[in-house]
C-alpha cells in the first residue's frame, strides 16, 4: 500500500559546498540518498517536498555540516494479504518469481491453481493451462502476498495466484 509519510533525515554536506545555494544542495543530496531505498519495512518511492531544514551544524573533526531535514515522501509498504500487479521474471519447476516494483515475490507451484501446470518442454519453460493462460518471463500476473520477511535494506515476499481474480492478466 502507498502512503504519504513524514520522515526526517540528517544530511551531511562537504565544506566545499558551503555557500548561497546550500538549501538546494541539501535537498538534492537528500533526494539522491533516499529515493528508491528500502528501509526494511517500506520502500521510499519519491520525495514530495522538504520542510524544517535545520541550521547547519559543523561536526567537530571532519568539518562536514550536518543538517536535519524533514521531508514528505511517497512510500510503499507491502502487506500480507495485499494484492499486487507484478511482472514475472523467471520460471522453474518449483514455481515462478515476479517483481512488484522493487519487491521480488515467489509463487510456489502449490499456490498456483491445479489446472495451471509446469511445462518444461516449452521454450522458455512456462506455467500454462494449455489454453489461454501462459505464465512465462514477462507475463503480467496479479498476486496476493501471503508472507513477508524483511532483512536489512531488503524485503522478500511469498505470493499466491490460486484465488478469485488472481493470476494472469490479459493485456
Amino acid at each position, binding site marked *: 500500500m502507498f502512503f504519504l509519510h513524514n520522515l526526517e533525515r540528517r544530511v551531511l554536506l562537504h565544506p566545499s559546498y558551503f555557500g548561497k545555494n546550500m538549501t538546494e544542495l541539501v535537498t538534492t543530496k537528500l533526494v539522491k540518498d533516499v529515493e528508491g531505498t528500502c528501509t526494511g519495512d517500506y520502500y521510499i518511492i519519491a520525495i514530495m517536498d522538504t520542510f524544517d531544514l535545520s541550521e547547519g551544524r559543523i561536526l567537530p573533526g571532519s568539518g562536514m555540516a550536518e543538517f536535519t531535514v524533514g521531508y514528505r515522501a511517497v512510500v510503499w509498504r507491502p502487506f500480507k494479504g495485499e494484492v499486487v500487479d507484478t511482472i514475472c521474471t*523467471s520460471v522453474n519447476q518449483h*514455481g515462478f518469481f515476479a517483481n512488484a516494483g522493487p519487491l521480488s515475490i515467489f509463487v510456489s507451484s502449490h*499456490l498456483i491453481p491445479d489446472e495451471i501446470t509446469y511445462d518444461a*518442454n516449452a521454450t522458455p519453460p512456462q506455467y500454462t493451462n494449455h489454453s489461454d493462460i501462459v505464465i512465462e518471463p514477462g507475463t503480467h500476473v496479479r498476486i496476493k502476498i501471503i*508472507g513477508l520477511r524483511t532483512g536489512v535494506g531488503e524485503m*522478500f515476499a*511469498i505470493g499466491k495466484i490460486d484465488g478469485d481474480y488472481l493470476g494472469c492478466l490479459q493485456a
Partner: protein
Amino acid sequence: MGKTKTIRLGNRLRYPITIVRLLKSPGDTVKKQDALMEYSFKWYKEVGDTIRGDTWEEEQTTFADWCSPSDGTLKSWSIKEGQVIKQDGPCLMIDEDCSHEIQFQGLCAICGKDMTEANWAAETRDTERAPISMVHDQTNLTVSTTHAQKSERELQKRLLESRKLSLVVDLDQTVIQACIDPTVGEWMKDPTNPNYDSVKNVKTFQLDDGPHALVRKCWYYIKMRPGLEGFLRRISTMYELHVYTMGTRAYAQNVARVVDPEKKLFGNRVISRDENGNMYSKSLQRLFPVSTNMVVIIDDRSDVWPHNRPNLIKVTPYEFFKGIGDINASFLPKRQDLLTSAPSTNGVKKEEKPAEKNAKAVAAGKDTDEVTQEQLEEQQSALEKQINERPLQLLQEKQDKEDEEAEKATVQSDDSSSSRSSSPPPQRHKVLLDDDNELEFLEKHLTQLHKAYYTNYDQKKSKRAIGEDVPDVGQLLDNLKAKVLRGYQIALSGVLPQNTDIYRSEIGQQITSFGAKLRSTVSKDVTHLVVNSAQPGTAKLNAARRYPHIKIVGLEWLAQCFAEWAAVDETPYLYFKDDAKNVAATRQEQGDSSDESDEEMQGVESSNNLLKTPPPKRSKLKLTLPGKAEDDGDVADEDEDGLLPDEVEEGQMSPIDGLKTFNWGSADDELAEFLASGSDDDDDDEDMDEEDEEDDQDFAPAEESSSSSSSEDSRASLKRKSRSRSGSPVTRKRKLDDDDGEEEGKEEEDGEESSPAKRIRRMKSQRGSSLRNQYEVAPDLPTPAVTGDEVEEGGEDKGENYTDLDEEALEADLEAEFAAMENGEGEWGNEAGEGEDKG
C-alpha cells in the same frame, strides 16, 4: 498439504522423566509453543551452608511443560500418563499444516511463514527442512529432500518419455573460447588483417560487471567452436542441455545468447558461479541432488568435477585465441593437463594456484570472504592485464616480424632467379587458426552413449525389471570407454614427475578409464610406451627398445585415442619414426633462428622431406654431386620403389606443385658455384648418414631426405649474408651435439645389427668425426666461399627492389605445407616409422 510428522521428545530434557499429564488429546489443533503435556523429573540440589562447607544434596522434583515444536493437528500420543521415559524417543504424531518444503529467503513458499525465527520449543530451525538448492538461477530458493526427489522423478519421467538424457555443458574452452583482448575487435574491423577471416565469426557483447574502471564496460569476444551450431542442434534432440560455467551470471547469459539466440537449446537452464555456491568445483548434485543416472557432462577439465567423474566426457580444450586460455579459470587450480597443448604464457593463467593460496590464507586465519575478495581482485587484474598487454597483438607482431624476415631472406636470395618487377604486399601469416574438429568426435560419442542408454533401458523395460531404477549413464559411459584400449598395457616415460602416484594422476586415471592397464615399469607385458617428446626419459625408453613389440609413441597418440575413443593407428605417432624427423625439426628451428631459410632452399627441402623430389631434380643431384652419387642413387631407387608418400595416393595436391615453375637452372648454378667453393657440405652429409644408418638399413629413404636436404641447407646457409651465416653454424653445431647424444644412447642396439651395416657405420663415423673437427672451426675462418658470397650479394641488392610474383605464390604454398606438416606431424614419416618397427 498436511503431512504426518512424528515428533520426538528431544534430548534437551533431563531424563528419566515421568509423564504427569497429557494436556491435549488427539484431534486437537495445536500451535507452536503450546504446552502439550506436563512431566516431572528428579534432580539433586546442593543445600546447606556453603561457607562453612556444611552442605548436602537433596533430591528435588520439578514439574515442567513440554511444548509443541510445530503447528498442526495432534494425531496420536505414543506415551501414556504416568509413564517413565529413560531416553529420547518419539512421543506424538502431528498432522502438520505445512511441512515447509519449499522456502524462499527464509520464508516458507507454501504457507508464507517466516522460517528463520528461532524457537525454544523446537530443536532445529525450520530452515533446515529445505536444505537443497536445485534451481539454476537462484540460490535462495531451497526445497526439502522429498520435494527434490519428487521433482527429479518428474524430470526423469519427462526425459524418458521424450527419450532424452541431460547434458551439462561447460562453456569456456569446451564449446566456445572467450577473450577480452581489444586486438580482436580491431582485427574484426580491418579487412586487410591476416586474421580478418578467422575472427569474422567472433561474436561480441559488452559487460558491465567489472568493479574497476578499466574492466568496466569491456567487450567480450566469443569464438564458437567450429560446427557448434549444428552440433548443439543435433545433440539437443537426444539431450536436454544445461549450461554450467564458472563465469559470472551475466557472462553466462550473454554467452548463452550468443550460442543460442532463440533460447531453444538451453532455455533458462543456465548456472554460473554466482549460483554455484563454490568457487573451486562444480557439482552435479547442485542441479540433480538425488540421482545423476541420466546426466552426462562435457567439460574440458576433469579436476573441477571431483565427485562426478563417471558422468564426465572430457573434451580437448578449445584454444582459438592462442595463449588466452580460460578467462574465467583464475579461481580454479591451475590446469594440470599434460595432453593439452603448451600452457599459455601470458594472460590470465599466470597466477599462483588459487586453491593453494586459499589453503595458505585459511591457515593464516583469514576470512574466506576476504580470500574470495582477493581472488576477485586477482581476476580483475588478470583481465586488466589482458586488455593492457594485448597478448594477441604481440603474438601477431611476432609472427609478422618473422614473416618479414623470411620475406627479406627470400628477396635477397632469390633475385638471381626472379625476373619480374611488381611487388605484391607481403603475405602475412595469421596467428588465429580455426582448425578444430573435436565436436565431430564428441557428437559421435554422445550419440553412441544415447543409443547405448536407451537400448539398455528398453531391455530392462521389456524384462519388466525396471522399477524406480533407470540405467546409470555413468556406468554405460565407463563400459563404452573401457572397450577402447582394452588389452593395452601402457607405461609412461617422462610424462609425470618422479615420485608421483601414476595411478592417481589425471593421465593415469584417464588411461585406466579407457580400459588400458597402467604399468609403472617396462616389462614384456607392456604393449605401449608413451613418451613425452619434450623430455624423454632414457631408462624406460631403452628398456622398451629391447622389446621389439613395444610401440613407443608420443603423448599425442594418447590424446588422439582419448579424443576419438578408438585405438588409433600408432604409426603416425611413433616416437622413433626415423631420424629424418628429428633432423627436420632441427632444420625448422634452424630456419627460424636464421631468418627462415630462403625460398628455393625450402623448396628442395620440403620436396626431399616428402620424398617427392621430381625426377629431373634428382638426376641433376646425381650429376652435380658425383661424390655422393652411389649412396644417394641407391637410396633414390628404393625411394621410388615402395615408399611413395600417402598424400599423393590420397589425391591431395602435392606440396611442391609450386616448384613446377621453379627455376632449376639458377639453383643448379648456385649449387655448382658452391661446390666449387668449399667442403663444408661434405662433412655435414657424412654426419647425417652416419647417424641415420645407426638404426637400421630400412631407414635409407629417410636418410636420403635428411642428407640431401642438409646439403641443401649448408649450401643455402653459405649463400646467405654474413649476418645469417653467424646464426646457422651455431644451430648446426647444436644439431651435431644432439647426434652425438643419440649415438651414445643407441649403442645398445648396435650389437644386434648386421655386420656390413656395422662396418659402414664405423667407416662413416670415423670419417665423420674427423670432418666434424674441421667443421667446427670452419665458420669463424674466412673461407673462399665467403668471398664468393659477397660478390653474389652485390647482385642481390640490386634485385631487392622488385619481387617475383611466382616466388610469392611459391612461398605461400610452401609455408602452408610447412604449417600442415607441423599440425599433422609425422604423416610423412610413416614409412620410416614402420621400418623402425621391423628392426
